[in-house]
């Protein structure tokens, strides 16, 4: 099989590309885990939006507190928010924790419990 050599070369290239680009993978943390997380770079932090949502600039700038079971952190974000964003939902903020203790998010992802269905009646 003379395809083996080219196949290995391609596999090697793919492996290298995955390896090299995989370095950009971000840590996925809860607010509590962020406390003990060392190492810089962008991270994603999941937590529940608290009631102190403060929108300014027509909704293009927002600050709120994100909380999990034990810890909370202030989040600051500029841009359009997901449609379902409101206090009480779980969001994933992607960004960096600043020296001021505020998490500067560059994206906010809303975790819809489900996009295709709403809360079942049976519960």
């Amino acid at each position, binding site marked *: 099989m*003379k*395809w083996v050599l*080219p*196949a290995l070369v*391609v*596999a090697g*290239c*793919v492996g290298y*590309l*995955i390896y*090299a*680009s*995989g370095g*950009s*993978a*971000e*840590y*996925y*943390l809860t607010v509590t*885990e962020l406390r003990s997380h060392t190492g810089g770079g*962008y991270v*994603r932090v999941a937590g529940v939006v608290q009631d102190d949502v403060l*929108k300014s*600039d*027509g*909704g*293009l700038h927002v600050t709120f507190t994100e909380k999990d079971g034990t810890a909370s952190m202030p989040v600051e974000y*500029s*841009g*359009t*928010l997901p*449609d*379902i964003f*409101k206090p009480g939902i779980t969001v*994933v903020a*992607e960004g960096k924790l600043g020296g001021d203790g505020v998490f500067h998010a560059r994206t906010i*992802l*809303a*975790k*819809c*419990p*489900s*996009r*295709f*269905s*709403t*809360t*079942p*009646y*049976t519960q």
Partner: protein
Amino acid sequence: MAGFSAVLSFWAGWQENAVMVQVGRRAFFAAAVMIVLAGAVLEWALLSHDFSLAYVAEHTDLATPTALVAAGFYGGQEGSLLYWALVLGLLGSASLVASANLGVRLAAYAAGVLAAIVSFFLIVLVLVASPFDLLSVIPPDGLGLNPVLRDGGMLIHPPVVLAGFASFAIPFSFAAAALLAGRPDSAWISHTRRFALMAWSLQTTGLVLGMWWAYHVLGWGGYWGWDPVENVALMPWLATTAYLHSSQVQEKRGRLRAWNFGLVILAFLLVVFGTFIVRSGVVQSVHTFAISAIGPWFLAFLFVCIVFSVVLLATRADQLGGRAEPTILVSREGAFALQNLLLIGVVAVVIWGTVLPLVSGMVGQQRVVSASYYERAAGPLLVVILALMAAGPLLPWGRAGRAQGAIYQDGRLRPYARALVWPGATALVVLVALALAGVRSIPALVALPFAAAVAATCITQFARLGRRWVLLPSMLRRRRRRYGAYLAHLGLAVLVTGIAASHFWQQEKDVTLAPGQQVTVAGYTLTYLGAVERQLADHSELVGAMRFGDVTLEPARATYAGLGGQSLTHVAISTTPLADVYVVMAGANADGSGSFRIFVNPLVTWIWAGATIIIVGVVLGNVGERSAATEAVRRRIPAPVPS
């Protein structure tokens, strides 16, 4: 109702054991008819607002327009599985009718494999995800559909993409049947190809419709987010793209047999794997279905399918040898093989990105990749694939060119090398033009010239055809597949150009404007006129009017009071020849000013145009072509040559 469904699965389960081909096939048809009946019952329950069914109550309400109530059929987990079984039943029946002349054993095994897959879905439908579960208390009204889904796109994108997803089972069944029957020759290829092509076309349409919908509805200015659900829909498409190309090598040269079986099987395994991943909730996605108990079932099914496929391929490996023939790298089949490897490489990149959260979560802290991972890892592979698309169709098959190294012969370029001059020159011209225009982004400088080269290759092929215009009708008739494929390639070049332009040169700006104030983004000037509040039947809308040239754009923010005040963006898009002006309303302020996010997306319309050309090319090249293709195959490859 559940009892009724149980009868269905009994029928389907029973026929697996039926060795008698006719009985087995008729049992399959009967199962298909019953699934259709079950589907009709569910649809009727939806349309008649029978809220005693949990499924109806959870996915529709009285206020939803009728068309969307009907769409509720596939809007939820259970219904979409029933829809899946329905597609399998109908397409499966069609494929069994068409396979009548393939030989008794092959047809019987294909029916058996298909029936087994349908049975699995019916068992899941009855035991864990029945759309016919009754509620003890009948609610006066249902919960209704998520507002994001209350859109015309809901009527076309999900059914097409689900049908595409489901139909990958048919090529798989025939490949498995060919292996089971010990007939791994090319007869199954011509047969399977039609269904693979159909699945591929459905999936292409479904993917593009999904992109179109996301772009027009979600309001983030993009169309592809590398979300797990998008990824799992893309992977079988990539594997099938590879198969559609490599199967030609088997048709024309009798080679790559094991590889072709592998690809068809891989496409189906990716479908099952993807369904498991996104429906069990093991990977987070914006598309997540309600988490349900179907995860373990799909995992078990995936396991069974993998074991079945591997054992099958291993036991038949001896029959799968290709024709012994020296391999020439610079040849048509060489290009196909490399393209295949690269496509599988892209699949590997996408799989790794999709499962990384799972894998890393098992060994330590969970990690996720962002879109840049896919761009950096898959981008170079896709660029090489583009280069192959430009050069591959011009290369001669096998030794016909005796092409190893000798591009020159008697001081002249060989014909295939001369043909390469056009795409090469086009790429160079585009490269220089871009560089002169001040483009310095390396990915753009690589992707766009190659896309232009692909287009040039296709156009020179059509031009050659045009020169021999006397023969045109007969050439077009005899080589339909070929010219259909060139048209599809041309469409892809257009699509890639659209993706590249909108990806590299998208501009966005967040602004807050007082009425009468202007903003300019990428040379497009918009004037804010003011905002008004409108009250509609089930929601209220805050509409911000924006003057753009002669048109008034009306981006809006809707609020659904009935759904806990959920808000929804209505994007306003104005399409100009070069770019889309895409305005998202963020909100209004007390002083009368409005806040917006404005995108300028270059050449997005090229994506939709390119996709349309691809589908037109595939349809023109293949619909109704069936007998000719089968004959050609039989003529060229009379019998498998033992090696």
